[in-house]
Every structure is written in C-alpha cells, then in structure tokens.
C-alpha cells in the first residue's frame, strides 16, 4: 500500500485531497493466461543447472501456481551435446555435469507433453565477483541492507542480487497444554508451537551497474529495506544475498522486471511492457515467460538480532486480533478449535484455563516452520 500512497500523493498533493481511488476490474477474466513460465540457471560455480517450469494464472486467482512436471528438458552446449535435466518434483528439473563451466555457451530446450517445443537463445556463462560485504544501516525509519562488491578484472559491469530472507517469530501466546487422549497435559518443551522460522524469497529485485561508477566498484548499494516495526525484526532476522553477474541483455531484462514490478502503470511511470525473456516457442507465437542464464554465483548471509538494535526497534508488537479467554475445567475440555495457554489457580486449586484461538498460539498458521534452520545461530 505504500507504493500506492506515493503514487497518489504525487498527484493528490496538488489537488488538496480531492482524488479518489476505487477498485478496477480488468476486462480479461476469461482469457487463457496459462503461459509457460521458465526459470533456468546454469550455476558454473557448482556445475549444476536447474530449471523450474510452472504456468501463469489469472490475477485474481488465489490458487497455487501449477507446476509442469512432465516436460522433457535439456541443455545443449556449444558442441551440440544435450545434457538432460531430471525432474525432482515441484516442477524442478536439474542436472550436475562437469560440462557446466564458466565462459561456455548453452541453450535450453524444452518439450511439453502436448508436443510444444521451446528454446532459449544461446547464453554464455559469466564469471562472478565475490561479495565484499553485506552491511546494515540502522536509520530512523528502518534498516537498509547494503551490498558492496567489486570486480578487479573489470569484466563485469552488471549485477543482480536475489535475496532469501529468514526470520524467527513467535505466536501471540504460547500454548502450554495440549489434549492427549481427551485429557489436558502439559506440552513438552521440544513440542512447543509458538516459535517458528519463516523463509521467503524477497520480491525486491536489486540490479546494479558499475557503468557510471569509479573503478568498477559497487559500494553500499541498497538491496532491501526493512521497516522499523516489521514483524521480521522482532527476534532474529537473516538474509542471504546471492549475487549474479549479468550481461547487457540480462541486465535489461532484470531492470525491466524491477521497474515493472515497482511501478504498475501510473501516468508518469514508464510504459509497463510485456517483458520479453530469451525463450520462445518454436513454430508459434505463443508467449513464454522467463529467462535462461548462467554463470558463477557468490553468496553471503547476515543476521540482525533485535536485542542489538536501538531501543525503538525493541518495541513489543502486540497482535490486536488475539486475546485470552477463561474457561472452567469442564468447559475447557469441550473447547473446539482453541488452544489452552495456561492454567489458572486460586491458591493451589485449579479453577480453570486461559485459552485463545489456534491463530494466536500456533505460529505455523502464519506460514513458518518449527524446525530451526541449520544455519540459525
């Protein structure tokens, strides 16, 4: 919604708040939009190629993206050797081969079960530059995560980063009891369900070019901004930055992606465009979405601990939708779809239980997992 406010204020400031915003339904609900979506990369650092095939869905759809699990996928090198990629589930095809090296040419070939054939342009795997540092700037409004890198060889001009964020979060209440065989029992410590870890790819696209910068250096380039009271920063937050080298075509593609995902077609925005990837259907003009690229990848992970942040970052973030209610021991047994948080005693007599909703006591309902990631401190 922030982007929206910016856009509106851009104009509304001049109009003394007379502007108005209403929903707009694009007149395209019935169009067939199940285009093939390809995400392919030849990682020459670990000689592994991965390709993920999915399909596009309508804007208003809330279902999952359908995966394409039955296609024939292969990568052809400059010598004409076709290296088949094996489907490992979830639309993900991969292969590790000593043939995947830096500085060679490759082409992606796909054949779907309906007989349609697709191919990419020929790409060259690019050398990488190692990340110098990933730093954080704690500012008034939030934290800027910045990347610094440089390429001593001077052969890399364009970079792209993608980010995978992981953060620890807690449910509003911790459920200390559970029903076992119709009886309320104290929950074991290692079965607690109030602490979760959520991992998500960041939608922020960070591209950078050293075209205008002295000695091919990228210094403190902002890659992601974390708002001060973001739930991600309540405990421990981690982000892994993966840095890819790009050629001009790749940079243009990702720049377009970045621009079009940040601006969705305002009047002063550049025209949103149908971004052409480098994959096309053979013998038809059916749209194919996606980009195939390759090269060396450099990664770096950092952690941000809430207790090390300034006090204004350490504010309690209450969930206004959660509250505890009281039930006597008989009622407590009949509670359905609720979780018991604690027992209430008067003196030593148990008079009842505090309870709350599952959403307020089971952190998994918010999309995270209980298992602590292997890299977690």
């Amino acid at each position, binding site marked *: 919604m922030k982007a929206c406010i910016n856009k509106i204020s851009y104009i509304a400031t001049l109009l003394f708040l007379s502007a108005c915003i209403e929903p707009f339904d694009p007149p395209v609900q019935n169009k067939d939009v199940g*285009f093939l979506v390809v995400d392919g990369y030849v990682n020459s650092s670990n000689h592994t190629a991965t390709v993920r095939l999915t399909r596009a869905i309508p804007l208003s759809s809330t279902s999952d993206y359908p995966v394409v699990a039955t296609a024939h996928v292969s990568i052809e090198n400059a010598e004409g050797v076709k290296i088949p990629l094996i489907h490992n589930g979830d639309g993900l095809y991969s292969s590790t081969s000593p043939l995947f090296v830096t500085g060679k040419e490759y082409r992606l070939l796909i054949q779907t079960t309906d007989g349609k054939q697709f191919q990419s342009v020929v790409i060259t795997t690019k050398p990488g530059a190692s990340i110098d540092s990933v730093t954080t700037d704690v500012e008034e409004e939030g934290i800027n995560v910045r990347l610094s890198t440089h390429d001593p060889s001077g052969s890399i001009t364009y970079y792209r980063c993608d980010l995978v964020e992981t953060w620890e979060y807690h449910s509003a209440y911790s459920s200390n009891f559970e029903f076992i065989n119709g009886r309320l029992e104290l929950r074991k410590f290692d079965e607690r369900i109030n602490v979760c870890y959520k991992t998500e790819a960041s939608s922020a696209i960070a591209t950078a070019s050293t075209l205008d910068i002295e000695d091919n250096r990228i210094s403190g380039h902002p890659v992601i901004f974390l708002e001060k009271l973001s739930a991600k920063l309540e405990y421990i937050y981690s982000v892994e930055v993966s840095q890819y080298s790009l050629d001009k075509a790749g940079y243009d593609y990702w720049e377009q992606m970045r621009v079009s995902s940040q601006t969705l077609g305002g009047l002063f925005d550049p025209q949103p465009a149908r971004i052409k990837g480098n994959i096309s259907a053979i013998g038809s003009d059916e749209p194919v979405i996606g980009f195939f690229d390759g090269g060396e990848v450099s990664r770096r992970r950092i952690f941000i601990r809430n207790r090390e942040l300034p006090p204004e970052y350490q504010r309690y973030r209450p969930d206004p939708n959660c509250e505890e209610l009281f039930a006597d021991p008989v009622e407590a047994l009949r509670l359905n779809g609720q979780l018991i948080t604690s027992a209430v005693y008067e003196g030593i007599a148990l008079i009842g239980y505090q309870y709350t909703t599952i959403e307020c006591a089971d952190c998994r309902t918010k999309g995270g997992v209980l298992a602590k990631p292997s890299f977690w401190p």
Partner: protein
Amino acid sequence: MLKNALLTVIFAATFTVCLSQSNSRITLNLRESSFETLALEIEKQSPFHFFYKKEWVDSLKFSVTANNEELESVLTKAFNGTTLRFSIYKTSVFVTSERSVFASLPTDYFDTQKRATQRITFDYSDYEKQEKKQRSIEEKVYTIGISDGNPNGNATISGSITDMNSGEAIVGASIVLDGGSNGTVSDINGFYSLVIPKGKQSITVRSVGMKTTKRKMSVLGNGKLSIELEEDVKPLKEVVIESDRDEKVMSLKVGSEKLDIKTMKQMPSVLGEVDVLKVVLTLPGVQSVGEGASGINVRGGATNQNLILFNDAVVYNSTHLFGFFSAFNPDILKTVELYKSGVNAEYGGRLSAVLDVASREGNLKKFTASGGISPITGRITLEGPIKKDQTSILVSGRSTYSSWLLRQIDSREFNKSTASFYDANITLSHKINDKSSIQLSGYTSRDQFKLNSDTLYSYGETNASLKFKRVFSNKLYGIFTGTYTDYGYEVGNEEIPQQANNVRFGIQQVNGKADFNYFMNQRQTLTAGLQVTHYRLEPGSRIPTHPESIVTEKILEQEQGHESAVYVGENYEITPKLSVYGGIRYSFFQSLGPKDVYLYDSEVSRSQQSIFDTLRISRGKPVATYHGAEPRLSMRYIIGKNASFKLSYNRMRQYIHMLSNTTAIAPTDIWKLSDRYIKPQVGDQIAGGYYQSLKGGSLDLSVEVYYKWMKNFLDYKDGATLILNEHIETDALNAKGKAYGLELMLKKPAGKLNGWISYAYSRTFLRTVSLNPVETVNDGKYYPSNYDKPHAANFISNYKFNRRFNFSLNFTYSTGRPITIPLAKYSINGIERTYYSARNEFRIPDYFRTDLSINIEGNHKIKKLAHSSWTLAVYNLTGRANVYSVFFINEGQEIKGYKLSVFAKPIPTITYNFRF
C-alpha cells in the same frame, strides 16, 4: 418613439425658418471650389452668415453656377449630390450634415427625469464628448491618396486598426466596403489592406466587443487610413461576435480556430483561472491524456509535435504544476490561434499543430492595473504609456501559494511536499512613426516541486522576442523578429550523502526571421520569408553535490544545430467563389560538431556492444544534414450564399524531438536534435471541410475530415534509459504513425445564448519498424497510441442573463485512453510477477465531466476607480470520478486493480478579478 418626436420637432423648425427667410439675390460661377470659397462669395454678396462644421465640408468640392438667384436655390444646387443640408434663419445659414443633426443628440435628451437618474451612473459630459468626437471622426470625409488623373479604377487603402483606449492593435476586425462585396480582416498586427473603387466610398469596421464604426472617404488613389475602435461598454442588443460570423466560411483556413480572450473568459475554469490550454481542449480534435496532464494532442499527434509560440518565441513548457495551470497569464493575452491543418508556410518545425499565442501590447493611453485572486494563485498586471500614443509598457506577474496550502494539511506525507510556480511578463511597445513600430517582450517562469521525498524537481523557461514592424508601402509590409528561448530543468537529490547529485538538462534556441506580406492586388496576396534558428542543447549532466558522494560526474557532450527555412506563399482569389493558397517551405537542418559520433555494426541491432568506432566531428562541421520541401496547399470553394468547401494538404518536418517514455509530458523529459541516427520526423496531412453558416449567420456548422501519415516517430525499447544516455540511438525505435478522423462542430457565436457543440471521431496508431524482433512493439503491428481516444464530444454554452450576470455550463465526454495492463501473474524463484497485455490493448473507462461558472460583473460606471468581477465556478459539478490512471497493487495473494480519479468531487472556486 422619442426619436420620432424629436425628428418632427426639428423638421417643423426647419420648415418655419425657411418661410421667414429674407430676400437676397446671388450671382455665382464656381468650379471645384472649396466650401469656404462658396461661403465667402455668398457672404460678400449678401448679409447671410454661414455656420458649419469643418469636418462635414472640408473634403468636398463644389461646382455651381447662379445668376441672380435666391440663396435657397443656389445652395440646393451646390449641395446636390452631397449629404449637406441647410437651414436659413434670418441672416444665419446653418449647414448640417443631415444625419448628424439627429443622431448626435442623446436619445433621451428631452426626458429630463430619466436623464437626471442616469447622471448618477453615466458621466454625460464625458460620454457626450467621446460620442461627439467619434461622430466627428465618422462624419469627416477623408481624402485618400493623390489623384493620378484617372477618376476610375481601383485603389488600395491600408492601415491599422487599433483600440482607442489602449492603442493596441486589433486582430480580426472586419473591414467591409459599404454597398459592395469587398471586405477584409485585420491581420495579427492589426494591419489591413483593401482594394476599393475610386470615388466617394464608406467602409464599416467591426470587431468583437468594440463599437462598430464607419469611415467616409473620397478615394483618389492608393493611401493609408488607420482606424481606432472604441470599446463597447454599452449594453449590446445585437450579436457579440459579428466579425467572425462569416470568417469560418469565407477564410481559406481548414482546421484552424481563433479564440479571443473574451470567449475564453466566459468558460468555467478549474482552479479559478482562465486557461488557454483548457479552452483549446474543448475544440474538436484536441485531446490530452488526462486531467492535470501537461501537453495537448492534436489530431493524433504527440505532445511534443505542437509548435507553441508565445509572441513568436517557441515555448517548450506550456504548463505549470503538471498541467493544472497553463504557462500563459490570462490577463495579458490577446489572441490564441490553433492550426490543426492547413498550416501556412510561415510556420514550421513541428509535425502536428501550431498554437500561436500573442500577448497584448500594453495600453498606450493611460495607466491601468488588473489582476485576480483565487484560492491557489494571485496575479497582477500593470500597463500604461511611457509616452502617450507612442510607447507603452505592460508588466505582469503570477504566483501560487499552493506550497503554503500543502503545509496546512496535517499530514507528514504532505508536509514534506512542496509545489510552487511563478511567471512574469514584460512587454514594451513603441511606435516609431506611422510606418514602423517595435515591440520587445520577455517571459520567465519557474516551477518547483518536491513530493514526499527529498528529491527536488525544478524547471524554468525564459523567452524573449524583439519584433520590428515596418510598412514599406500600402501594399508591402515586413516584420523582423528575433526570439530567444531557454528551457531547463534540474533534479537534485540530497537524501543519501553517498548518492547526492544534481541532474540537469537545458536547451537554448535563438531564432531570427523576416516575414513579408505583399498585397499584389485585390485578388492576390504574397507572403514570403526567411527563418534561421540556432539550437544549443545540454543533453544532460550529473554532478555529485556532496564530498562523500560516490556518484561520478557525467556531462554529456553539448549538441548544437542550425535550422533554416525559406518560404513563399500566395493567396489567390481565382474567382469570387474559388480561392487557393499555395505555399512552399524549404527547411534545412544541420546538426553540428564538436561531437563524438558512434559508429555501429550495421549487421546487428544497435547497442553499446555493436559500436566499432567513434568519429570525432570538429567544431562547426556537420554531424548530419537533412533538408526537404514542405508544400502547403489550401483551397476554398464557396457554395451558394453561406457555405463553402475546403481542402488542404500540408507536409511538416520536425528536427527536434522530445525523448519521453511516459504517457504525459513529465518535467524530466528531454529534447534531442536530429543527428546521424535520429531522423527528422515528417508528417503529411490532408484535410477537407464543409462550412456553412445557418440561420443568417447565427449558427456556424463545420465538418472536417483528415488523414495523417507520420514517419520517423520516436518510440523506445522497453525499459530504455533516456536520461544521461549518450547513445540514445541504441534505445530508440523508429515508428510510423497514422491518424485519421472526423470533426463536427456547431457553433452559435453570438446572442444571449452562445457556445458550441462538437464531436470528433479520431484514431491514431503507431507501428515500430525494425528487422530485429527485440526492437518491435506488439510484434511490429499497428497499436493505438497513448492518446488514441476515438470518441470525444463537447458542449459549451454560455448564457447572458444581463450585462452583469453570465452563466456558463459545459459538458465534456471522451473515450478512455488506451492502457497496458497486467493480464496474468506467475512466479519465478518464489517471487510473484505480472505478465502484461500487448501495448495499449485495453482502455480506462470513459470520461465525462460537467462544469459550471457564473460571472458577476461589478456595476458599469465608466468612470470609477476599479472595475471588478467575481467568478464562481464549479469544476466537475456532478462529482463523477473520472479515471485518470489505472494501477495495480499486490494485496495479499491477489493483484488488485485500482482506478485513480483526480477530481473525484466537485471543485468550487471563487476568483476576484479587478481592473483599474
């Protein structure tokens, strides 16, 4: 009634005095004598004494022979064929020009009661003085030219039409020979030339809002007659816009509209000010991309394809505050002329249309001030003579206090925002003598805004023009003009010290031209001229503004170029029904060094990688040269009494281009000269029209059709970087455009109720032309341009309740503009993305708006300190939420579309205007 009674009284008086005349006999033999000789001769021979007005008699010659005749018969003979009448009372002879006797008296002269009440509001002595002065001018017979011995044949009279009060030239006044079919219209400089038969003639001069006047003359040969018109302050029962009545039918112009400030002032305005561009937008064939968007699109042309001239200087930025205000202060405007087609050869340099805006010259007679205050802006104009009737000055300024308003809004978002503008004008006019005049005009403006960020945008424009007019003979006059334009913008960013920088762009142009107008004869007028323009562009620079800044300095190499043109055109009335205009303009452009030119591998699409060499062009040497002919043709054929049919063809060439990949003109758009790779844009248009005046001229109907081809239109690769790009050719695409349409307009130019209804069907398409699929939009097929709005209709009405209340109601409708929207979403690497439609495949909802305004004038005493008026206006009366823009936001799992309306509720404004 009263007038008739008066006539009776005077006739009766005349009759009685005639009976009581004394008997004296006179003998005379005069040939071509003056009245004085005649009177003197009679006075010698008799006791009679003459009383007369010199103006009535001084250009008359008398031939009379009398032998011992009575005075009455002598005078009857002598005055035969003149308008002179006489009355004899005892020994007094009163010589009158019949009409003046009766008309010069106020109509209610004998109604003392009424006169007494009217004295309060009318200063009669002053009024009468002026009336009498006007009468005496009208009654005077002017002798024009020197006789060449041939009393037959034609002669040319010429001169200028000016405003009696301010001395300013009046444009578009009609000058018609009484009883004949000859007539003409004063040109942009108030100049006219009319061919009439020799002998005693009279002409009638009419202009909007001015009193109609007549001139009597005795035409002996070619000569000069300048005419001053008086502003009409009296209630007008007759039509208001009389002079324009037949102009649309009679003139040769196809697809042109002339608006005077009086018409514009009657239209409701948003934000309380008369806005030239908003008025122009109500004409058929003129569109904008949306409310509050800068720039106009004329007949499918891009916003940068309009030649906008302010006192002949090219204007690059025609609006303030994203288009909410036009750059022209309404108080100083005289005329606005829009040419959509049929552009004459003197105009050139832009593809689509010409908007010629002229300011007033300043009052030559007395000092006056005028201005207005609205909730957003304030403006003031001062003008007056430095030397009466010869030199005048006009100074005006306008500024906004919207920044102040923004700060009043209790929101952090808005507190960080600022937006303001000002503009100022100065015009100095000097009449050197009857034949020469000079005018210096200057304009400067500045806009600044900062919207919810620390980035400060500012842009400004400065124009100057010096114009020298010289009438060489009554057939030939010339105008020599020098103009200067300086436009630039600046974007400063101080947010992060490491990134602090300042980006600038600038353009300067100096233009010199000479235009000649030669009235060959009654049927032929020749125009010719020469123009030279020098451009200097600073295509962009970025300078770090903080010691810690790691942004490198980048200054793109200056661009410079010369554009010159010669033209000649002729208006030729082949028969009274058929007139043609033929003109040709030949333009020549050179982009000049010093400049680095990149050479690209011709095999592949141009990119940084395909540069194989750099060519250094040294100072003054051409980088690229383009030239071409631009034919301009118009034809008019009159059908019957009140209708005409017209055709026109014109070709235009444009050597300077705006680089923009936003839909509206943004303050950060840059301009670029044609060079080795960016070819000049060329546009051809054929247009035809049918014009008819209906109901005796009270309604004008026009139907126009056009078809347009455009070549070398600039479009861009998706995601192109335009700012600070030294090889823009790698991002530019070459597009072709076509546009066609039909425009209907029914106008009631005058009467208590006036206004117009217009409808336009217009389409405009673009197509990128390239062999490389990456360089094409929509696979190289035609796609609608951003401002393709097929249907547009306007209803503009204005009703005068009385002299003081004026009510105006307008409706505007148009199809929504095309947009590119997201169609589907997909996920790559766990990140959701959107997939867009083909370019401009969809449209925003249709636009409809109703506006209302009421003008309340103060009382109409001529003599009082200040004249004031109030304008109450409501923009978007129905509060309809017209969609300005559509945007999409990720909300949870869904991507939701939203439509933004700018003026989603009625916007009332109240403006106080004053003049003293």
